[in-house]
């Protein structure tokens, strides 16, 4: 579904990605982790061709810039920074996004009502987003993302600030979407989310993908240890030192 070959990206003189390769099959739910500033968000933006880069990216065997010209509406991207129109109601916001994607509101009305119910926003749907909390704003963007029928979902820290119940609902919905053939790239710092949800994990460190394994092949505790080994942090000894202080 998604292939990245020899990706190189620089911001001025700062190199962010070097010779990065990744091949994600259709229907895979990939968890992407890496330290702050490793280039996870940049990578997602490169897939969407929002930034210039060196290398090749193919989506469904088509170069991404060509694919995006014709199939832009089959990709959903949920950025880390939430943008919502404060002076729209929750329902109006979802309606506007559907409108831009040329999806009839009536066709998916039942789905929207159900999603509002699942994310506990039903009684707030006709209130201005201005009055929403941060978590509620995040939830309204999740609803807008889930109501579409994409082939590829790029999610950047999607559950930041969201309550526990909604995270459980979101995880179940992602599992279902993945089973129906939607390819999902989930960039997050929460390793537990990856453990419980994803089919595979990719660790982005030192400008390239250093680990890319299916979760069946890797023991769950190994992810944390591997990650800590990579970033070079001896947590146990530091905690011991802390206890002594």
């Amino acid at each position, binding site marked *: 579904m998604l*292939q990245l070959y020899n990706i190189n990206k620089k*911001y001025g003189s*700062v190199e962010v990605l070097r010779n990065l390769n990744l091949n994600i099959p259709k229907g895979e739910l990939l968890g992407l982790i890496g330290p702050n*500033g490793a280039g996870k*968000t*940049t990578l997602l*933006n490169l897939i*969407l*061709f*929002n*930034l210039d880069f060196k290398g090749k990216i*193919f989506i469904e*065997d*088509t*170069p991404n810039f*060509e*694919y*995006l*010209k*014709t199939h*832009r509406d089959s990709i959903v*991207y*949920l*950025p880390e*920074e939430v*943008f919502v*129109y404060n*002076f*729209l*109601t929750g329902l*109006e916001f979802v309606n*506007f*996004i559907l*409108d*831009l*994607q*040329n999806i009839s509101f009536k066709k998916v009305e039942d789905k929207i009502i159900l999603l509002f119910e699942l994310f506990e926003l039903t009684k707030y749907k006709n209130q*201005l987003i201005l009055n929403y909390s941060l978590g509620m704003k995040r939830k309204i963007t999740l609803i807008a993302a889930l109501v579409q029928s994409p082939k590829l979902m790029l999610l950047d820290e999607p559950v930041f600030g969201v309550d526990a119940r909604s995270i459980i609902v979101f995880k179940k919905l992602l599992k279902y979407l993945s089973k129906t053939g939607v390819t999902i790239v989930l960039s997050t710092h929460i390793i537990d989310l990856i453990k419980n949800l994803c089919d595979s994990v990719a660790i982005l460190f030192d400008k390239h993908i250093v680990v890319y394994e299916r979760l069946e092949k890797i023991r769950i505790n190994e992810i944390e240890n591997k990650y800590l080994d990579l970033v070079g942090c001896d947590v146990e000894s530091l905690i011991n030192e802390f206890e002594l202080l």
Partner: protein
Amino acid sequence: MIPKKINIFKRTNLKSIIEMCPLKIILNHIRVFKNWLRIKDNLFGIIILGIIALLTLISIRHITTQYQNNTAIQIFILLFNLFIPILLTNTYLRAAKKENQFLLTLMSKSELKKIRQFQTILSNLFIFFILLIFGIIPKLTYQYIFIIASVFILILIVPFQIIIVLNKPNISKSIKKKNVFYHKYNFKIDLPVHGLVIRDILFLWRENKIKLLYYILFLFIVNSVIVFISIRNNLNNLYVAGFHFQAFQILAIILRYPTENNSKILRFYPNYTYKILKTEFIFWFAFFLIYFGLLTPFYFIFIQNFSLHFFPILTLMFIMLLMYAIIIRLAFLENTIIRIIYFLLILIPPAIPFVLYKCFRRFKCYSYTI
């Protein structure tokens, strides 16, 4: 792997641009605006702004009709007709700037660019024809030639207007830098007054370097033109007007200057309100004195009849307006437009006590409202 052949021009024709929904985005903006007006303060502000704009236009029409055959007035009308649509469209584009990042998650950059171009043309021409149809501007000698030329100019200028909103739409690095900056200077607030002033200067320089350089260049050109004209003609009023214009520019900076730093400080330390008021007043008044202190010798060298007879009155007027602007700036941290609207209320003197009352009430309850 062989890429599939895809018609890359599929979305570049006009039909597809309309399909890609600039009109839907405009309709959404109208909906957002309608909801924005549901807030009492905003509705009140817009009504006041509307009245001020209408009074200004009526007085301009009155003056221009009297001197309609004068070439200078004709040039003024012509420029005014172009300036108003461009100014208002730019305001609209700036207001929609944050939206770009969001729309880029739904469409490509080139599509977004086309949509913004379409919106800009539409907005420029819409405002221009509103000015014409409602007869706000009197007729010119060559009215039809003027209309056609204006339409052309308003279409040709669109790419330059678009640059304002579409340059660097997606640089996450700068956001990171900004955050580091905020942390560094916002929370060290046990600084003395001069520390807050240093923070303001650093903020002005580090965050708005390019804008500031453009501004300096603009003011340099303005002063050069004034001096150049004043050397050849004995127009004393011109440099007096120039000084006033620049004093008002300082007030405009105060009202438009970003308020994030103050918002963050006041959120945690609302009792700092009066300290910040004092600091900002000292800072901007010192800025005024240094600026004109540097400017005066420049005029003195080139203009023979130069005198500073108007300066004490200008300074007094500036001190009053400065206090008013800084109070408004701190009371309405959330929105530049609201700040400008409330500042313009100074044109209706009976409204001033109400504005000040509202500002001080806001200062009192900062810990709850921000």
